[in-house]
């Protein structure tokens, strides 16, 4: 089946990100196709380039990036939710006159329309939230 995940919990604050990541891994292990993970609400913090958790804890940002590289999963971050929370890519940083970027590639800023599109195109959209 074609799946998409909607993640709305902040990393380390809630269980949501850990659960979503394990669910994502389980999906691809079972041979399903995970099309994309959409990050909304506080879930956008999963894309934080500067996250530096202790070494003996799971590194969620890197874990999402690895999943994306290994299985061509698109990591889509709601741009409106991200900008408010200080998550900017190169283009947005330039547009807002900010130095540096805070979104980790391959996460990409995109619109809520993409979430609607995923929900329509995929067989299942599974939400993880606090």
């Amino acid at each position, binding site marked *: 089946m074609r799946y998409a995940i909607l993640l709305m919990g902040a990393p380390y604050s809630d269980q949501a990100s850990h659960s979503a990541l394990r669910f994502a891994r389980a999906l691809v292990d079972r041979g399903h196709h995970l099309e994309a993970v959409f990050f909304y*609400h506080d879930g956008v913090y999963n894309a934080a380039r500067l996250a530096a958790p202790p070494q003996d804890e799971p590194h969620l940002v890197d874990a999402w990036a690895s999943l994306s590289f290994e299985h061509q999963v698109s990591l889509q971050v709601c741009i409106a939710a991200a900008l408010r929370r200080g998550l900017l890519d190169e283009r947005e940083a330039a547009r807002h006159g900010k130095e540096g970027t805070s979104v980790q590639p391959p996460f990409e800023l995109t619109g809520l329309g993409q979430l609607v599109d995923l929900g329509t195109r995929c067989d299942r959209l599974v939400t993880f939230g606090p």
Partner: protein
Amino acid sequence: MHDHLYDGDLLVILRHGPHGSSWLKEGLDAALVAAAFGRHVSLLFMGEGVMALMAGQQAGPLGQKGTAATLDMLEMYDIETLLVDEQGLSLFDLSCDELMLEVTCVSSAELARVLSGHRLVLTF
């Protein structure tokens, strides 16, 4: 109750009040975007979410925009199916006619049909 109330492309469930967190605002944003993309969107106000429909709410002193203005725009976006969970209303001792928009009350028993009648459900 007419059957079309139970059907649609997207059901957005709103379970948070208008103040204290951005859940309601971000849930409504998702509903508006989906409607702008031509989807048939229904809203279901559940639990504390019914407080969103109390009349006379303002932006408040924190400089946040508030959600009443967004709710007023729903009709413009063709979001016409507004459902309120009866239990949520009774939780706050409210009745349908005290709310700022015309809504349809649904019982717990009817909720299952509402959920299964929508292709996609997003909960905020």
